[in-house]
């Protein structure tokens, strides 16, 4: 029987997500600095861009790998209806 996968119940993804989110905000960088300028962005914005991309990438991973409910539940209800069961 397939396991129901739900993001909220997969504990390890949340600390990772929180770290990516919090490190994307420049609270820990020295206030008042902006050089070097990377690709037209002040360095701290560039760091935030990298973390934002990391967040989007991580979300893509979570959606793909940590979320599978409907198909599993449908399989179950079909099995119940036909009277069969998993071995």
């Amino acid at each position, binding site marked *: 029987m397939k396991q129901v996968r739900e*993001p*909220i119940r997969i504990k390890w993804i949340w600390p990772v997500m929180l770290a990516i*989110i919090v490190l994307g905000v420049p609270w820990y960088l020295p206030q008042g600095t*902006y050089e070097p*300028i990377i690709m037209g*962005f002040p360095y701290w914005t560039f760091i935030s*861009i990298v973390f*934002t991309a990391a*967040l989007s990438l991580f*979300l893509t991973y979570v959606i793909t790998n940590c979320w599978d409910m409907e198909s599993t539940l449908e399989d179950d209800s079909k099995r119940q209806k036909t009277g069969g069961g998993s071995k």
Partner: protein
Amino acid sequence: MNLPFIGWHGVITIVLYALFILGTTLYLATKGVSRKSLSSFYLANKGLGPLLLFFTLFSTQYSGNTVVGYPATAYRMGFAWWMSVPYMVMVIVGYMLFAPRLHVVSKKFGFVTPSDWFDKRFNSKAVTLIATLLMAYGLLNYLLEQLVAMGQAVAGLTAGVIPYIYGVLFLIAIMLVYEWMGGLKAVALADFINGVVILVGVLGFLILAWVNFGSLGSATANLAQIAPSKVVVPQIESSMNWLSYYVLVGIGAAVYPHALQRIYAAESEKTLKKSLMRMAWMPFATTAVVLIIGIIGTQAFPGLDRMQSEQLVGMMANALAAKSTANYWFMMLLFSGVIAAIMSTTDSVVLSLSSLLSNDIYGKIINPKADEGQKVLWGKIAGIILVFVLLLIAWKPPATLIEIFTLKFEVLIQVAPAFLLGLYWKGLSKTGVLWGMIAGAVLAGAMTFTGVKTWHGWHGGVLGLALNLVVAVVLSFIFPDSPEEQKGAEESYAWTVKD
């Protein structure tokens, strides 16, 4: 917005564009839509495929304000406005907290509106009523904002050759016709067309601005000289404000009634996953692009004050349009895109509001015995009346856009604990959730109305949500539901995780 380069051409473009949308939606999206079934009308038979679902999520989330208001904010705030990119990604994080479970629950019980969840989970008239009123209030504010934006965009594009209110009335009429005929299916199709136009318009505008006003690099170097505070690592309070926006938008936009209804309307989990995965990357093509446009604007038009900066996109468009005929027509397309963006946000809000009125206010309180056809009809008519009442209010628009943008989230977000906790914890009692919502809304409302928008950078809505959660949990322990009620509550969601 003042766009003297346009006038009758603008009027003709708007008319043709709107008629094109109307023709396409009426031709393609009214077949198979039953106006006698709530689910068919408001949720497109719960059969939105990946492409339509994605574009309707996209166009609903990114409104005309993203195109017109955000570059102006970037102009005033500088690079700290990069926050608008991750906070839009945060909406998907918000969805991850509850959408997977809510989707399967909504399918099983045939939910039409967010209030249906409240009804099923808490089985309390007071809870459902307060939640419905909070959502309706937030949606009304949101709708008002869209109408104001529509008025400004139309006024700019037609440059006063027709009074702008006629333009707005015309667009609203088109919108109401396709909505009346096709419900969510028509709205989603219009969103698809509008979404494509917005994307092309914004990217094209960036390229033209970059080529004509200088690159981002030169604008940044220039800004570091003339206004270093917009380039340097922001103050700690700005960083707190940044985090506060994450919570406000991430949770707030995810629990928008029309956003919740798109979770219900997704054809399948696979479709929903595909759409959300794409949405996680869209901020890079939208809010990031308009940020760069705003920064380039600081070099093209330096020294604008707050009010003048609101006109930034219009000024840039004027200057670009004056350079060549091709630019001129491209700018026309861009501003059709702006109006399209506003329209596609407005139509979703009107539809969602109408469903709240028909399914929840009329169907649950005024006339529970009504059949679905009556409910749909009642919702449509009440929705139209509300739109016209708001139009009257919109006649005197407030000065800038961003403040009202925050205000609508303040109250809407207060329904979040019912999803974030209610879907997972049977102990969340009706007393807890009810007083939590009320406490949160009162705190957020009081802060807004007394003009104290933030406290150490944190928005009233976020502080309200924190209070809301505390009150909800504490009161749930002091006044728990009876064991039978808790068992009933558990039955509404526990089956999703039997494994």
